[in-house]
Protein backbone atom coordinates (compact mmCIF):
# COMPACT_ATOMS: atom_id res chain seq x y z
CA UNK A 1 0.00 0.00 0.00
CA UNK A 2 1.67 3.24 -1.05
CA UNK A 3 0.87 6.82 -1.24
CA UNK A 4 3.38 7.52 -4.01
CA UNK A 5 2.08 9.30 -7.04
CA UNK A 6 3.33 8.35 -10.49
CA UNK A 7 5.15 11.63 -10.82
CA UNK A 8 6.86 11.03 -7.50
CA UNK A 9 7.98 7.58 -8.60
CA UNK A 10 9.45 9.01 -11.80
CA UNK A 11 11.29 11.88 -10.13
CA UNK A 12 12.50 9.55 -7.43
CA UNK A 13 14.18 7.19 -9.87
CA UNK A 14 15.48 10.01 -12.03
CA UNK A 15 16.87 12.44 -9.50
CA UNK A 16 16.32 11.87 -5.81
CA UNK A 17 17.47 8.29 -5.69
CA UNK A 18 19.22 8.23 -9.03
CA UNK A 19 19.78 4.66 -10.09
CA UNK A 20 23.48 5.09 -10.68
CA UNK A 21 24.58 7.82 -8.31
CA UNK A 22 22.51 6.80 -5.29
CA UNK A 23 21.49 3.21 -5.72
CA UNK A 24 24.78 2.01 -7.26
CA UNK A 25 23.23 0.13 -10.12
CA UNK A 26 24.72 0.00 -13.58
CA UNK A 27 28.17 1.03 -12.41
CA UNK A 28 30.07 -1.22 -14.83
CA UNK A 29 28.71 0.38 -18.01
CA UNK A 30 28.75 3.75 -16.27
CA UNK A 31 32.49 3.43 -15.82
CA UNK A 32 33.12 1.65 -19.09
CA UNK A 33 30.95 3.34 -21.68
CA UNK A 34 31.06 6.89 -20.51
CA UNK A 35 34.07 8.12 -22.44
CA UNK A 36 32.25 9.31 -25.52
CA UNK A 37 29.09 11.35 -25.52
CA UNK A 38 27.24 9.63 -28.34
CA UNK A 39 28.00 6.06 -27.31
CA UNK A 40 26.89 7.04 -23.85
CA UNK A 41 23.57 8.43 -25.00
CA UNK A 42 22.93 5.43 -27.20
CA UNK A 43 23.75 3.07 -24.37
CA UNK A 44 21.35 5.03 -22.23
CA UNK A 45 18.57 4.67 -24.76
CA UNK A 46 19.19 0.97 -25.25
CA UNK A 47 19.19 0.44 -21.49
CA UNK A 48 15.95 2.38 -21.10
CA UNK A 49 14.29 0.31 -23.76
CA UNK A 50 15.48 -2.96 -22.25
CA UNK A 51 14.33 -1.78 -18.83
CA UNK A 52 10.90 -1.04 -20.18
CA UNK A 53 10.53 -4.46 -21.76
CA UNK A 54 11.99 -6.26 -18.76
CA UNK A 55 9.76 -4.40 -16.36
CA UNK A 56 6.63 -5.53 -18.15
CA UNK A 57 7.76 -9.14 -18.38
CA UNK A 58 9.05 -9.22 -14.81
CA UNK A 59 5.71 -7.99 -13.56
CA UNK A 60 3.89 -10.71 -15.48
CA UNK A 61 6.26 -13.44 -14.35
CA UNK A 62 6.04 -12.36 -10.74
CA UNK A 63 2.26 -12.63 -10.83
CA UNK A 64 2.69 -16.14 -12.17
CA UNK A 65 5.24 -17.13 -9.55
CA UNK A 66 3.04 -15.83 -6.75
CA UNK A 67 0.15 -17.80 -8.17
CA UNK A 68 2.08 -21.06 -8.25
CA UNK A 69 3.83 -20.23 -4.99
CA UNK A 70 7.39 -20.65 -6.20
CA UNK A 71 9.19 -17.50 -5.03
CA UNK A 72 12.56 -19.20 -5.21
CA UNK A 73 12.37 -19.21 -8.99
CA UNK A 74 12.22 -15.45 -9.09
CA UNK A 75 15.89 -14.74 -9.71
CA UNK A 76 16.30 -17.35 -12.42
CA UNK A 77 13.19 -16.27 -14.28
CA UNK A 78 14.17 -12.62 -14.15
CA UNK A 79 17.59 -13.40 -15.60
CA UNK A 80 16.02 -15.39 -18.41
CA UNK A 81 13.64 -12.52 -19.13
CA UNK A 82 16.42 -9.99 -19.22
CA UNK A 83 18.62 -12.11 -21.47
CA UNK A 84 15.68 -12.58 -23.83
CA UNK A 85 14.80 -8.90 -23.73
CA UNK A 86 18.35 -8.02 -24.67
CA UNK A 87 18.27 -10.50 -27.55
CA UNK A 88 15.04 -8.95 -28.70
CA UNK A 89 16.37 -5.42 -28.56
CA UNK A 90 19.51 -6.54 -30.35
CA UNK A 91 17.56 -8.05 -33.24
CA UNK A 92 15.31 -4.99 -33.33
CA UNK A 93 18.20 -2.54 -33.52
CA UNK A 94 20.05 -4.65 -36.05
CA UNK A 95 17.05 -4.64 -38.33
CA UNK A 96 16.09 -1.01 -38.05
CA UNK A 97 19.41 0.70 -37.56
CA UNK A 98 22.51 -1.31 -38.54
CA UNK A 99 24.70 1.72 -37.95
CA UNK A 100 23.55 1.98 -34.35
CA UNK A 101 24.06 -1.73 -33.98
CA UNK A 102 27.66 -1.45 -35.09
CA UNK A 103 28.24 1.59 -32.90
CA UNK A 104 27.01 -0.19 -29.80
CA UNK A 105 28.98 -3.30 -30.66
CA UNK A 106 29.75 -5.50 -27.72
CA UNK A 107 27.96 -3.33 -25.23
CA UNK A 108 24.55 -4.49 -26.25
CA UNK A 109 24.84 -8.11 -25.13
CA UNK A 110 26.69 -6.88 -22.07
CA UNK A 111 23.50 -5.14 -20.94
CA UNK A 112 22.45 -8.57 -19.74
CA UNK A 113 24.96 -8.32 -16.93
CA UNK A 114 24.00 -4.74 -16.22
CA UNK A 115 22.87 -4.83 -12.64
CA UNK A 116 20.60 -1.87 -13.26
CA UNK A 117 18.14 -3.97 -15.22
CA UNK A 118 18.01 -6.82 -12.76
CA UNK A 119 18.02 -4.29 -9.94
CA UNK A 120 15.01 -2.62 -11.49
CA UNK A 121 13.10 -5.89 -11.68
CA UNK A 122 13.97 -6.84 -8.12
CA UNK A 123 13.18 -3.41 -6.68
CA UNK A 124 9.86 -3.07 -8.42
CA UNK A 125 8.81 -6.45 -7.04
CA UNK A 126 10.05 -5.66 -3.56
CA UNK A 127 8.16 -2.38 -3.55
CA UNK A 128 5.01 -4.10 -4.73
CA UNK A 129 4.38 -1.66 -7.55
CA UNK A 130 1.34 -2.09 -9.74
CA UNK A 131 1.72 -2.50 -13.49
CA UNK A 132 1.53 1.19 -14.29
CA UNK A 133 3.74 2.12 -11.35
CA UNK A 134 6.35 -0.37 -12.55
CA UNK A 135 6.35 1.11 -16.04
CA UNK A 136 6.83 4.62 -14.73
CA UNK A 137 9.57 3.38 -12.44
CA UNK A 138 11.32 1.66 -15.35
CA UNK A 139 11.21 4.75 -17.53
CA UNK A 140 12.41 6.91 -14.66
CA UNK A 141 15.24 4.50 -13.94
CA UNK A 142 16.29 4.38 -17.57
CA UNK A 143 16.18 8.14 -17.76
CA UNK A 144 18.19 8.37 -14.57
CA UNK A 145 20.83 6.02 -15.92
CA UNK A 146 20.99 7.94 -19.19
CA UNK A 147 21.28 11.21 -17.33
CA UNK A 148 24.14 9.96 -15.19
CA UNK A 149 26.07 8.37 -18.01
CA UNK A 150 25.63 11.33 -20.35
CA UNK A 151 26.75 13.74 -17.65
CA UNK A 152 29.82 11.64 -17.02
CA UNK A 153 30.56 11.37 -20.74
CA UNK A 154 30.35 15.11 -21.17
CA UNK A 155 32.79 15.63 -18.31
CA UNK A 156 35.16 12.97 -19.56
CA UNK A 157 35.25 14.47 -23.03
CA UNK A 158 36.32 17.75 -21.46
CA UNK A 159 38.94 15.88 -19.43
CA UNK A 160 40.51 14.61 -22.65
CA UNK A 161 41.53 18.16 -23.40
CA UNK A 162 43.30 18.71 -20.09
CA UNK A 163 46.35 17.16 -18.53
CA UNK A 164 45.53 14.58 -15.93
CA UNK A 165 48.22 13.24 -13.58
CA UNK A 166 49.21 9.70 -14.45
CA UNK A 167 48.35 8.22 -11.10
CA UNK A 168 44.80 9.35 -11.28
CA UNK A 169 44.11 8.51 -14.88
CA UNK A 170 41.58 5.94 -15.79
CA UNK A 171 39.06 4.56 -13.39
CA UNK A 172 40.32 6.49 -10.38
CA UNK A 173 39.38 9.89 -11.68
CA UNK A 174 36.07 8.69 -13.04
CA UNK A 175 35.17 7.43 -9.60
CA UNK A 176 36.12 10.67 -7.92
CA UNK A 177 34.06 12.63 -10.41
CA UNK A 178 31.21 10.22 -9.82
CA UNK A 179 31.51 10.97 -6.13
CA UNK A 180 31.17 14.68 -6.78
CA UNK A 181 28.21 14.06 -9.08
CA UNK A 182 26.62 11.92 -6.42
CA UNK A 183 26.97 14.67 -3.87
CA UNK A 184 25.39 17.19 -6.20
CA UNK A 185 22.46 14.89 -6.77
CA UNK A 186 21.91 14.75 -3.05
CA UNK A 187 20.74 18.29 -3.41
CA UNK A 188 17.59 16.94 -4.98
CA UNK A 189 16.54 15.63 -1.60
CA UNK A 190 14.39 18.68 -1.21
CA UNK A 191 12.14 17.44 -3.99
CA UNK A 192 10.96 14.57 -1.85
Amino acid at each position, binding site marked *: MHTESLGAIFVNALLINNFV*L*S*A*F*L*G*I*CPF*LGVSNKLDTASRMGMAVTFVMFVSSVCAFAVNELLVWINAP*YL*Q*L*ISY*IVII*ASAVQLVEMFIKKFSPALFRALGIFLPLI*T*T*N*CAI*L*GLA*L*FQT*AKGYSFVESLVYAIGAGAGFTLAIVLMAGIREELELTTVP*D*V*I*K*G*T*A*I*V*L*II*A*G*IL*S*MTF*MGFAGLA
Partner: protein
Amino acid sequence: MSKTGPVTLDQSKGMDEFLKGLWNENPVFVQVLGMCPVLAVTNTVTNSLVMGVATSFVLVMSAIIVSATRNFIPKQVRIATYILFIATFVTMADYIIKAVSLSAHRSLGAFISLIVVNCIILGRAEAFSSRNKISDSIMDALGMGIGFTLAILMLGIVRETLGSGTFAGFPIFGSSFEPWVIMVLPGGAFFVLGFLLLAINAFNKRNMSGGT
Protein backbone atom coordinates in the same frame (compact mmCIF):
# COMPACT_ATOMS: atom_id res chain seq x y z
CA MET B 1 47.84 -26.24 -21.49
CA SER B 2 51.54 -26.92 -21.63
CA LYS B 3 53.72 -26.17 -18.68
CA THR B 4 56.43 -23.65 -19.30
CA GLY B 5 59.57 -22.92 -17.35
CA PRO B 6 60.81 -25.18 -14.58
CA VAL B 7 58.81 -28.23 -13.72
CA THR B 8 56.08 -27.19 -11.34
CA LEU B 9 54.16 -29.52 -9.12
CA ASP B 10 50.40 -29.46 -9.35
CA GLN B 11 50.19 -27.96 -5.88
CA SER B 12 52.37 -25.05 -6.75
CA LYS B 13 50.33 -24.33 -9.85
CA GLY B 14 47.24 -24.47 -7.68
CA MET B 15 48.83 -21.95 -5.34
CA ASP B 16 49.59 -19.67 -8.28
CA GLU B 17 46.00 -19.75 -9.37
CA PHE B 18 44.97 -18.95 -5.82
CA LEU B 19 47.45 -16.15 -5.23
CA LYS B 20 46.81 -14.27 -8.45
CA GLY B 21 43.32 -13.45 -7.34
CA LEU B 22 44.65 -11.76 -4.25
CA TRP B 23 46.81 -9.09 -5.84
CA ASN B 24 47.99 -9.29 -9.44
CA GLU B 25 44.58 -9.97 -10.84
CA ASN B 26 42.52 -8.71 -7.94
CA PRO B 27 38.99 -8.52 -9.29
CA VAL B 28 38.24 -5.16 -7.70
CA PHE B 29 41.44 -3.19 -7.98
CA VAL B 30 42.97 -4.57 -11.16
CA GLN B 31 40.18 -5.99 -13.23
CA VAL B 32 37.67 -3.42 -11.98
CA LEU B 33 34.83 -5.89 -12.17
CA GLY B 34 31.76 -6.32 -10.04
CA MET B 35 31.59 -2.67 -9.11
CA CYS B 36 27.97 -2.44 -8.08
CA PRO B 37 28.16 -4.42 -4.85
CA VAL B 38 31.59 -2.97 -4.08
CA LEU B 39 30.12 0.48 -3.75
CA ALA B 40 26.74 -0.41 -2.39
CA VAL B 41 27.39 -2.75 0.51
CA THR B 42 30.67 -1.44 1.83
CA ASN B 43 29.07 1.00 4.24
CA THR B 44 29.72 -1.31 7.16
CA VAL B 45 32.35 -3.94 7.85
CA THR B 46 29.74 -6.64 8.54
CA ASN B 47 27.96 -6.04 5.25
CA SER B 48 31.24 -6.22 3.36
CA LEU B 49 32.15 -9.47 5.04
CA VAL B 50 28.82 -11.13 4.36
CA MET B 51 28.85 -9.98 0.75
CA GLY B 52 32.41 -11.22 0.31
CA VAL B 53 31.59 -14.62 1.75
CA ALA B 54 28.42 -14.93 -0.31
CA THR B 55 30.24 -13.99 -3.51
CA SER B 56 33.04 -16.43 -2.76
CA PHE B 57 30.49 -19.16 -2.12
CA VAL B 58 28.87 -18.58 -5.49
CA LEU B 59 32.26 -18.32 -7.19
CA VAL B 60 33.50 -21.62 -5.81
CA MET B 61 30.27 -23.56 -6.36
CA SER B 62 29.98 -22.28 -9.92
CA ALA B 63 33.63 -23.08 -10.56
CA ILE B 64 33.10 -26.65 -9.42
CA ILE B 65 30.01 -27.30 -11.47
CA VAL B 66 31.18 -25.45 -14.58
CA SER B 67 34.48 -27.26 -14.53
CA ALA B 68 32.84 -30.62 -13.87
CA THR B 69 30.46 -30.27 -16.80
CA ARG B 70 32.78 -28.48 -19.18
CA ASN B 71 33.01 -31.41 -21.56
CA PHE B 72 29.31 -32.10 -21.68
CA ILE B 73 27.79 -28.74 -22.40
CA PRO B 74 27.44 -27.75 -26.06
CA LYS B 75 29.20 -24.52 -26.91
CA GLN B 76 26.09 -22.67 -27.99
CA VAL B 77 24.25 -22.98 -24.72
CA ARG B 78 27.31 -22.49 -22.58
CA ILE B 79 26.65 -18.99 -21.34
CA ALA B 80 23.00 -19.73 -20.74
CA THR B 81 23.74 -22.76 -18.59
CA TYR B 82 26.42 -20.91 -16.64
CA ILE B 83 23.98 -18.17 -15.87
CA LEU B 84 21.41 -20.72 -14.77
CA PHE B 85 23.89 -22.34 -12.41
CA ILE B 86 25.04 -19.02 -11.01
CA ALA B 87 21.47 -17.86 -10.46
CA THR B 88 20.72 -21.07 -8.61
CA PHE B 89 23.67 -20.68 -6.26
CA VAL B 90 22.86 -17.04 -5.66
CA THR B 91 19.29 -17.91 -4.74
CA MET B 92 20.61 -20.55 -2.38
CA ALA B 93 22.97 -18.04 -0.79
CA ASP B 94 20.07 -15.63 -0.42
CA TYR B 95 17.94 -18.10 1.51
CA ILE B 96 20.84 -19.27 3.64
CA ILE B 97 21.73 -15.71 4.65
CA LYS B 98 18.09 -15.01 5.45
CA ALA B 99 17.97 -18.06 7.68
CA VAL B 100 21.21 -17.27 9.46
CA SER B 101 20.68 -13.57 10.07
CA LEU B 102 17.59 -11.55 9.24
CA SER B 103 19.35 -8.28 9.92
CA ALA B 104 22.25 -9.01 7.58
CA HIS B 105 19.77 -10.02 4.90
CA ARG B 106 17.85 -6.81 5.39
CA SER B 107 21.00 -4.65 5.22
CA LEU B 108 22.18 -6.24 2.01
CA GLY B 109 18.76 -6.36 0.44
CA ALA B 110 18.62 -6.90 -3.27
CA PHE B 111 22.39 -6.85 -3.62
CA ILE B 112 22.60 -10.50 -2.65
CA SER B 113 20.49 -11.33 -5.66
CA LEU B 114 22.56 -8.94 -7.74
CA ILE B 115 25.60 -11.19 -7.20
CA VAL B 116 24.27 -13.09 -10.19
CA VAL B 117 25.19 -10.27 -12.56
CA ASN B 118 28.52 -9.71 -10.90
CA CYS B 119 30.82 -9.87 -13.91
CA ILE B 120 33.49 -11.60 -11.86
CA ILE B 121 31.55 -14.83 -11.61
CA LEU B 122 30.55 -15.21 -15.19
CA GLY B 123 33.98 -13.95 -16.19
CA ARG B 124 35.84 -16.59 -14.20
CA ALA B 125 33.48 -19.31 -15.32
CA GLU B 126 34.03 -18.43 -18.94
CA ALA B 127 37.71 -17.57 -18.83
CA PHE B 128 38.94 -20.24 -16.49
CA SER B 129 36.64 -22.87 -15.05
CA SER B 130 35.35 -23.92 -18.43
CA ARG B 131 38.86 -24.75 -19.58
CA ASN B 132 40.55 -26.16 -16.54
CA LYS B 133 40.13 -29.05 -14.21
CA ILE B 134 38.15 -28.90 -11.05
CA SER B 135 40.97 -28.55 -8.55
CA ASP B 136 42.56 -25.63 -10.42
CA SER B 137 39.19 -24.00 -10.92
CA ILE B 138 38.48 -24.16 -7.23
CA MET B 139 41.79 -22.51 -6.42
CA ASP B 140 41.15 -19.81 -8.99
CA ALA B 141 37.68 -19.17 -7.63
CA LEU B 142 38.88 -19.13 -4.04
CA GLY B 143 41.65 -16.68 -4.89
CA MET B 144 39.28 -14.36 -6.70
CA GLY B 145 36.73 -14.65 -3.96
CA ILE B 146 39.17 -13.91 -1.17
CA GLY B 147 40.76 -11.12 -3.22
CA PHE B 148 37.32 -9.64 -3.70
CA THR B 149 36.48 -10.02 -0.02
CA LEU B 150 39.73 -8.41 1.10
CA ALA B 151 39.21 -5.51 -1.28
CA ILE B 152 35.69 -4.75 -0.17
CA LEU B 153 36.67 -5.23 3.46
CA MET B 154 39.28 -2.54 2.96
CA LEU B 155 36.61 -0.22 1.65
CA GLY B 156 34.20 -1.23 4.37
CA ILE B 157 36.67 -0.58 7.15
CA VAL B 158 37.51 2.89 5.87
CA ARG B 159 33.89 3.80 5.32
CA GLU B 160 32.54 2.52 8.59
CA THR B 161 35.31 3.82 10.86
CA LEU B 162 35.29 7.26 9.31
CA GLY B 163 31.61 7.43 8.50
CA SER B 164 30.00 6.06 11.65
CA GLY B 165 32.85 5.89 14.09
CA THR B 166 32.23 2.20 14.62
CA PHE B 167 33.79 -1.09 13.62
CA ALA B 168 31.32 -3.88 12.97
CA GLY B 169 28.88 -1.98 15.12
CA PHE B 170 31.26 -1.36 18.01
CA PRO B 171 32.05 2.29 18.60
CA ILE B 172 35.77 2.81 18.52
CA PHE B 173 36.14 6.53 18.92
CA GLY B 174 34.89 8.54 21.83
CA SER B 175 31.55 10.26 21.71
CA SER B 176 33.22 13.50 20.73
CA PHE B 177 34.12 12.04 17.34
CA GLU B 178 32.13 13.72 14.62
CA PRO B 179 31.76 11.14 11.90
CA TRP B 180 32.37 12.01 8.27
CA VAL B 181 28.86 11.11 7.23
CA ILE B 182 29.79 11.45 3.59
CA MET B 183 31.66 8.19 3.94
CA VAL B 184 28.51 6.14 4.40
CA LEU B 185 26.72 8.01 1.65
CA PRO B 186 27.02 7.06 -2.03
CA GLY B 187 29.46 9.89 -2.75
CA GLY B 188 31.85 8.58 -0.15
CA ALA B 189 31.85 5.15 -1.68
CA PHE B 190 32.96 6.55 -5.00
CA PHE B 191 35.61 8.69 -3.35
CA VAL B 192 37.11 5.94 -1.22
CA LEU B 193 37.37 3.52 -4.11
CA GLY B 194 38.74 6.24 -6.38
CA PHE B 195 41.42 7.18 -3.89
CA LEU B 196 42.29 3.55 -3.21
CA LEU B 197 42.81 3.00 -6.93
CA LEU B 198 44.89 6.13 -7.03
CA ALA B 199 47.06 4.85 -4.20
CA ILE B 200 47.51 1.52 -5.94
CA ASN B 201 48.42 3.19 -9.21
CA ALA B 202 51.00 5.30 -7.42
CA PHE B 203 52.38 2.22 -5.70
CA ASN B 204 52.65 0.31 -8.98
CA LYS B 205 54.26 3.19 -10.77
CA ARG B 206 56.91 3.52 -8.13
CA ASN B 207 57.67 -0.18 -8.33
CA MET B 208 57.84 -0.18 -12.10
CA SER B 209 60.17 2.79 -12.36
CA GLY B 210 62.23 1.56 -9.41
CA GLY B 211 62.82 -1.85 -10.95
CA THR B 212 64.46 -2.89 -14.22
